[in-house]
């Protein structure tokens, strides 16, 4: 019986880890949409770019530098995309930004396919991070525990930035009433650029963390994007903690479904979403946004 509980604990921990990894992607999606009204369908492609940059830079400079550099580069790419393209869609019908980012995602995926081919690239966990933590009957790989730590720090820093700094106050005000922020003489343009950089950089970080344990191939972004959207919808727009709760919930539910009935592991996300939307149409902690009602 004790052993069974240990195995269940392993599964729940594993689900939480998957949740944190969904969160890295979903949080960026949520804040970009909340602030700019842009449904960024290219977010998964940015996750893929993070993984490809990780592989490429590791080959040139080694793992450590690539680990720092790749997510930052993805963040910079995000800011450039925001400045060049996304800013034109903030006041437009959300359908337009959706179409634009859909096209952008396809261009990025095809570009990766043309440059690197459709096959997954070879990339594995660095030797120093291999091995497993074993405590009695409990066992878990060091790399995943490291992922959990890195992702948690990144998310905590994002939370600090959004909740405990003047920058975060402007972001929050911008989410609830952008016109009033502008009326007070505060320009939202640099804030939006920074938010896109952070959100997309987090997706890049997820790609960097996943590259050694998942296939690095052009369509990897598509695979993760749907789950990230489900997390955003379940969590509710405009709520940091809503997205956090949703991501962890999705991770655990998906993990446990995979364990008990793997054939339904993909369907479990949508069943969960359906159930939550029936009970709370704005998601777990969604806030009312007049411009979206």
């Amino acid at each position, binding site marked *: 019986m004790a*052993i069974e509980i240990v*195995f269940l604990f*392993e*599964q729940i921990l*594993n*689900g939480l*880890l*998957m949740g944190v990894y969904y969160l890295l992607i979903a949080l960026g999606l949520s804040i970009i949409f909340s602030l700019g009204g842009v449904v960024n369908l290219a977010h998964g492609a940015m996750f893929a770019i993070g993984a490809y940059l990780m592989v490429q830079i590791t080959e040139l400079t080694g793992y450590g530098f690539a680990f720092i550099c790749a997510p930052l580069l993805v963040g910079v790419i995000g800011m450039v995309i925001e400045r060049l393209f996304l800013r034109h869609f903030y006041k437009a*019908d959300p*359908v*337009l930004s959706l*179409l*634009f980012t*859909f*096209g952008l995602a*396809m*261009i990025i995926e*095809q570009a990766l*396919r043309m440059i690197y*081919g*459709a*096959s*997954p*690239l*070879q*990339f*594995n*966990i660095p030797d120093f991070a*291999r*091995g*497993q933590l074993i405590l009695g009957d409990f*066992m878990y*790989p060091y*790399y*995943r525990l490291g992922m959990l730590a890195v992702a948690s720090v990144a998310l905590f820093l994002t939370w600090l930035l959004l909740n405990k700094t003047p920058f975060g106050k402007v972001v929050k005000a911008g989410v609830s009433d952008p016109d009033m922020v502008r009326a007070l003489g505060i320009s939202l343009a640099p804030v939006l650029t920074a938010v896109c950089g952070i959100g997309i950089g987090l997706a890049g970080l997820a790609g960097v963390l996943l590259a*050694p*344990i*998942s*296939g690095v*191939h*052009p*369509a*990897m972004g598509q*695979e*993760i994007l749907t789950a990230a959207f489900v997390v955003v919808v379940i969590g509710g727009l405009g709520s940091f903690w809503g997205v956090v709760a949703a991501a962890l919930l999705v991770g655990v539910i998906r*993990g*446990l479904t*995979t*364990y008990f009935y*793997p*054939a339904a*592991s*993909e369907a479990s996300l949508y069943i969960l979403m359906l159930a939550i939307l029936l009970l709370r149409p704005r998601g777990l902690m969604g806030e009312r946004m007049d411009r979206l009602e």
Partner: protein
Amino acid sequence: MIDKKKLPDQAKRRLVVGTVATVAASMYAPAFVRANSHTIKIGHLTPRTGFLGPMGEYAMMGATLAMEEVNASGGALGRPFEILFEDSVNPKTASSKAQRMVERDNVDFLVGEISSSSGLAISQVATRAQKMFLQTGCNSDELRGKNCSRYMFHLEANNSMYVNTIGREMLRQNMVKGKRWMAFTADYAFGHDLFEKTKRFMDANGAIFVSNDLVPTDATEFSSLILKIRQQKPDLVMSNLAGNSTTNFMKQYKEFNLPIPLAGADLNAVSIWGAGEGSFQGVWPIIWTHQVNAPSAKVFTESFTKRWGRPPDNQAVGDYLAIKILARAMQETKTIDTQKLIAYLESGVKFDVLRQREGYFRPWDHQLLFEMYTVQPVTGKPKNKWDVMQTSAPVPGPNESLEVLAPTAEQNACTFS
């Protein structure tokens, strides 16, 4: 010149939608070269995106190389080959694209496919249109059995051939008798069929079945399943996964480093290369690798590597051979008449199939028989990133019939209507 400022919102939206749709359509449009009546047109369908996409890319490279070689030597019957490539994303798309190729583009032959479900859909179109379909990557035994068609020829091994190939090696390594085994199976036609054949073999040879979990084809995360393996403590884990799933599973299995042997009944070189030196493990069957020790295999590997900058995988071989076999059949029969070509392929004529022994089609189910191999990680440091595996001697051995791996007519009856 359109003045966008003067357009009403709806028109602007239409403009954007139209532009995006045009860009999207052009990105996914087939590599399409208008044919003239002189050329021999081949419709090539295979998944280029999705979890089988990496193999589809090699399929296309193999077919292209074969076409270039055929055309460089004057074509078949003095007519050049021309291939229309299409991405067959799923069975429905495969069926509609095959229909379009047959009706609108007037292709003479259909070649390709990897997914057994899509292969069945294309075969139905080919049978109705009475066009030959040389399928190059579908494994399901049912395509050669209850769903067989006299218009469909199989250049891919069937699941029984895979299971019997790996089964012999597993018996040799004492991995079967009395061993408790767990299976993970891709949740579509190929996986279900492969699991059934695997289980039949394991049951017949005294293995003890623990469980089989069906895994969605788009699954990327296997940690929950690997923790389950750890809990169940089987003696053997058998993978019936496909495409990118196999790569991900191997990487994550290595990450958890369970001391339980891994084997599988189907593998592509793309999955081995994707997993790489650090993660490729276990023992697997494969129809061909670039390490095959045969003169024609070496020439092909050299030409392919020169053309595409990387060695060929097993999938490239199937599509390469399909085009080459078509060319030879036309040359020998001096016709492109479908019925005469079918009779020629059914005649037991032997082909160089880039292995030590020649191969031939069985007349009653149209399965191409050829030598198979098993692969496992190379001992020591690989000399490059492509040689992370070592390829066995051919299976069956030189003194055995090629028939021994494939199911008999009683085991997998096929009736051509």
